[in-house]
Each structure stands twice: as C-alpha cells, then as structure tokens.
C-alpha cells in the first residue's frame, strides 16, 4: 500500500466535500487570506450553503457567495470591506430578507469555534458581554445558564462544528501538513472544529521540507482532507507574505455589486474555469508582479 496524497483540483474537492445545505466555515479575515479560488468553485457548482460561519470579520469570501444567491443564513459578527466600504450583497440580501442573519459578535466567532474545536457542548462568555443588543437579537445562539460553581447567571454561545471548512494557507505537503506564515486569525480553531477540511495553498512543498521545519507546521495533515494548489488563489484578497490585496479589483467588485453583479460573476467566476484562466482574466503576470512588489518588512 502507498500513502494517499490529498492534492486535488478545486472542482474535485468541492464536489466531494461540500454538500448542499451544509454548514460551511470560510477562513481568512477582512481582505486577507480568503480562500477565493475554492469559493469561486463553490459558486460554479452552485452548492447551496445552509449556514455560513466566518472569522469575526468576513469580506468578499462571504459577500460573493451571498451575491450568487447560495447562502441561506449567516452567523454575522461583521461583513464588510473595511476602509473600502460596506458589503453590498450582504446588505442587499439581508435587507430584502433573502438572507437570514444570525447577529453575532467577535466573542461568538471566536468562542463558538473554540467550543467546537474542543468538543465542548457550549462556551460561556466573560461577564459584561450581555450589556449589548446582540444576545437579544439572536436568542438561538446566545443563552444564559447558571454557573454551577457560583450560581451566577452566565451568558453562553453555541459551539460550532462546521461540516466543512475552507481555509487558505501558504504551504502544505501532499498529505496536508500545513504552514501558516502570516496572521492566523481563527483558522486553526475552524480547522479543528470542522468535520471536513479543504486547504488551498500557494505552494505544495516536498515532505522533506516539512520534516526539516516541523516546528513551524501548525496544522497536522491528519486534520486535512484536500489540498488545492492554487498560486494567487486568494485574489482579490491578500495572501500574507506573498502578495497584497488588489484594491483596484475590490473597488471594481463593489461597483459591480451595485450595477451588474451577474456580469461580474460571468467575467470572473463562470468564465474562467481554472485558476490559471482566472489569473489571465485579472491581468496575468503584470498584475501578479504589481501585487507582489511592495515594501516587505521581513
């Protein structure tokens, strides 16, 4: 018997592991490390997402899935484009009622995944967080219980265990042993909490590389089901230590959402079938070089 390699095309990973109606976790935060190549493939395959959970701050990873009409409900601490503006599809679909919003906060995003990662039935929150409107807006996911030690009321959040997580990191070997080289956001707990895990990477590296740097490996391959090799696969968001976000493209996206989003999807999602085709459409080598050339602090 030979050991099974997990490297596969985005199309195969999505058709195999993303089921209609699933609870999906997507990694990255703000316009950084969003696993966009796999997310575009979910849109091509028109997979229905029953529930979407993210880091405390989602960006185009959530907004694009919502705009494609695929998301039934979202656990929302924040969806936006930071200094570039609000999230147009998230606003449009939630205001019309097509998208159900389960109002949350950063504490929910972090502790619900930590609870899921540790197989805890739920996760209590530090005192003080009950002073906002959020628990009242979402009585399904925030509930009070009695602290068994002090008898005091304590606010708790539901533990979350996504059916599948889609996370970007910089490097992995063919068996899914992965290295995160930039900020880690909530990706580790999302990986631990989820049943199936698809990792998209900038580079697949040889196992010898992994063995030499085992102190830097932060995701063991035993947690990973698929490795998708897509250089520049975070575009238009950044991949830490590889390239920055494409502000011009994100502005084009925000404009397209208001004017003609189906045309955006045709041009950038349905049109280019592979990651290579996509990279040509966004401007090829010239664009890639521009996003990599910057004042790098390391």
């Amino acid at each position, binding site marked *: 018997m030979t050991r099974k390699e997990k490297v596969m095309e985005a199309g195969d990973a999505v058709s195999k592991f993303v089921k209609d109606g699933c609870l999906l976790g997507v990694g990255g*935060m*703000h*316009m*950084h490390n969003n696993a966009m190549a796999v997310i575009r493939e979910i849109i091509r395959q028109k997979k229905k997402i029953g529930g979407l959970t993210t*880091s*405390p*701050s989602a960006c185009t990873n959530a907004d694009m899935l919502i705009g494609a009409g695929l998301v039934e409900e979202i656990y*929302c*601490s*924040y*969806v*936006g484009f*930071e*200094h570039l503006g*609000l*999230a147009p599809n*998230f*606003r449009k679909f*939630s*205001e019309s009622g097509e998208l159900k*919003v389960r*109002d*949350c*906060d*950063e*504490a929910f995003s*972090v*502790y619900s995944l*930590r609870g899921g990662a540790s197989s805890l039935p739920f996760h209590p929150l*530090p*005192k*003080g*967080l009950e*002073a*906002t*409107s*959020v628990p*009242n*807006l979402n009585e399904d996911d925030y509930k009070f219980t009695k602290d068994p030690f002090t008898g005091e009321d304590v606010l708790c959040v539901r533990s979350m265990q996504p059916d599948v997580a889609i996370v970007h990191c910089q490097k992995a070997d063919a068996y899914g042993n992965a290295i995160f080289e*930039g*900020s*880690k*956001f*909530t990706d*580790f*707990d999302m990986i631990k909490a989820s049943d199936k895990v698809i990792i998209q990477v900038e580079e697949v590296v040889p196992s010898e590389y992994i063995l030499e740097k085992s102190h830097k490996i932060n995701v063991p391959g035993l947690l990973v089901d698929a490795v998708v090799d897509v250089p520049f696969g975070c575009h238009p968001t*950044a991949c*830490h*230590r590889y390239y*920055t*976000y494409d502000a011009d493209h994100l502005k084009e996206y925000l404009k397209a959402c208001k004017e003609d989003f189906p045309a955006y999807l045709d041009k950038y999602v349905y049109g280019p079938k592979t990651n290579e085709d996509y990279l040509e459409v966004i401007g090829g080598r010239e664009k890639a070089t521009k996003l990599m050339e*910057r*004042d*790098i*602090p*390391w």
Partner: protein
Amino acid sequence: MVEVTVGERMAAAMARHLKDGEVVIMGAFSALPMLASRLAQLTHAPNVSFICGGSGAINPTLEPLPESSCDDRLLRAECIYALPDVIDLEARPEIDVFFAGGLQIDAKGNCNLVGIGKPGEIKFRGPGSVGLPFLSRAGRYIIYTMAHNTRNFVPEVDFISGPGFVDGELLSNGPSLVVTPLGVMDFEDKKMRLKSTHPGVSVEMVKENTGFDLIVPDNVGETPAPTDDELTIMRRLDPSGAARDSIR
C-alpha cells in the same frame, strides 16, 4: 509649513489622551488610531503598547502605515498574536483604552454597528458588532468617527453594539473621549460634553450637526494643532496620507 489636516489634528488629540504605560487596542478601519498610538509612543508615552486588532500585531513599527487592520505589513511588530489570544487579552484587565466607532453614537456614548431600524425590521444593515461588546471590559474608550452629523450622532442608538454609560453595573469606566471631524467631546455626569472645536468650526455648527443636546460649557476652545515634532513624526509614519487625508 504645510497646513495641518483634520485627520492629523484628530490623531494628535487621540495621541495626547493616551497615558504612558497604557495598553491600547483597535479594530477594523483604524488608520487614525494606529497613527495616534504610534505617535504617543514616539512622543510623551514610550511605554504605551498597542494591539492592531485582527492582525494580532503588538507594537508594529507602522512605517508605512497600512489602511487595513489585518495588513501583513503590520507584522513587523514585537509580537504576532493569534486572534483568539487577542480576544483573551480583551477579556482580561490589561486593556486600558479601546478605540471604538459606529453607524450611530448617542449622548451616553453607546455605539451601534448592527444597523438602522428595529429588531426584525432592519432597513439599513451595518457591518456587524465585531469587537465592540468587549468595550464593557476595557478601562475606558475613545470613540472616533469620520463624519459628524445628525444621522450618526443620534439621541438614542437603535441597537447597542458597544455599551456606553448603560444602566446597571459597568466593569468599564465607559467612554472618555469622542473625536470627530468637527471637534472633541468628553463626558460630564455620563453625558457627552463639547470640549473643543477644530479651526473654522463654530459651537453652533457642532450643535446643529448633533442629534441630541450636547453639554456646552461657557468656554469651548479650539482643538490644539499638532506641534511641529508631532507633525514631522506623523508625516514620516504616513507618507501616503492614509490617515492624513482620510477626512474630506
């Protein structure tokens, strides 16, 4: 000398509010708070520590100043904490000052990022509450906004994302300073009070653009301009003008 911009005046006002030795945290869309915190470190408060929200960067050097709070250029820092570790800090007593903002802010310093409307009938969706609920555990907080009008300064917020002086026991000392493109406010008996106006802004203008009755003392001064030293540092940290030109 080049004219001082509104952004620079706001950053200097926030920097001077930080005391040496304090621990400061900020979230998304924080070019001005990042600039203010670094400016404080390089002037009167070298022992300030600041945490740039989602990136997990603690004491980044900020040259150049990035616009996004999770930018990897922030990773030239003293420590890169994972986000769950940052949340642990937000829940501990370490955080002295939290930078906050909102779609709506009211007289008691409550901040709203949920949206405009009523439960079940939100007619304008905001981005979401993110880390603002942790204000309840911070020592005190500075509210900053990129606009100041009767739409964002309202009598009572529609939803509370970040609690100001709410009823009941607060773990926090509450909001302490509000910095906007029109002026600087603080609080008296848990109600917002005008402290100073920026050049060219009258007390009347601030009152007209605030949706509730501000406490207005007899002598409202002008927000002090940054010193030459402060200005030189800010322009070195922010050569592209990400913070400097952020207010129009």
